[in-house]
């Protein structure tokens, strides 16, 4: 599935525009939802929109480095999800709630 020779891509602004809108939707999700798991999923959405911008610029500049960065972002996201979900499970076991408005003390 390599690149066809001489094939033109759409202007990179299309992809950055879509990436901007997806990032804003993710930020909006972080701001308006109260379930910690859904907030976490919104953060994943923001990471993905950044990845889309990386790949679009990699294609636009003909450089592989953008794709390598997406690779690293995926690895970091996997680590983040493992630790974050473990934290959510631990918080749920001690408080029986993951509504972030109820979690207002650091005391375990």
């Amino acid at each position, binding site marked *: 599935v390599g690149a066809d020779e001489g094939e033109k891509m759409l202007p990179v602004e299309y992809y950055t525009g879509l990436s901007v809108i997806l990032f804003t939707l993710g930020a909006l999700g972080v701001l308006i939802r109260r379930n910690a*798991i859904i907030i976490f999923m919104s953060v994943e959405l923001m990471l993905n929109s950044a*990845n889309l911008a990386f790949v679009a610029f990699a294609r636009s500049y003909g450089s592989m480095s953008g794709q390598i960065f997406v690779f690293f972002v995926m690895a970091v996201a996997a680590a983040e999800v493992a630790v974050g979900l473990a934290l959510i499970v631990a918080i749920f076991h001690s408080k029986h709630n993951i509504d972030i408005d109820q979690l207002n003390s650091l005391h375990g």
Partner: protein
Amino acid sequence: MIPDFILFFGLAIVALASAIGLLLSKSAIYAALNLIINFTAIAFFYLVLSAPFIALTQIAVYAGAIMVLFLFVIMLLGAEKLERGTIQPWQRPAAIILAGILIAEAIYMSIAQVVPAAIAGDLPAEFGTPLAIGETLFNEYLLPFEVVSILLLAAMIGAIVLTKKGGLKRS
């Protein structure tokens, strides 16, 4: 050009609709399913952008492993019915105003041409293949690769310690 436009806008509508579905869904399960659709649409964007290896990694890692973890935790906690109407009345308008400011700034930055528009017309035939990815990764980015392995090990140990019985209560 016309098929490109149709492909782009079709995929963009799917991605945006599933992101909005994630925001508005009442149940965490539906939010997770919407997010899987979104990840798959973005994987198709990667295919269009001649990044087939990244596209398949996206499917396997994001839509596969990460979302399975999310769904597992949602079902483990019974979190799909946990959200109650505890939101403060001023929070939602404030969030929408802030998001409007953010998107206006971002669109201004996109239009203002802060990045030079360099378009590579002809790509090498192996662009985005696993071979090219591997060569770039292990020649130019070997140290970050090793650092990521340490990060994954630390995350694994952290997850095990946190979910151990009484893991948070020690100390």
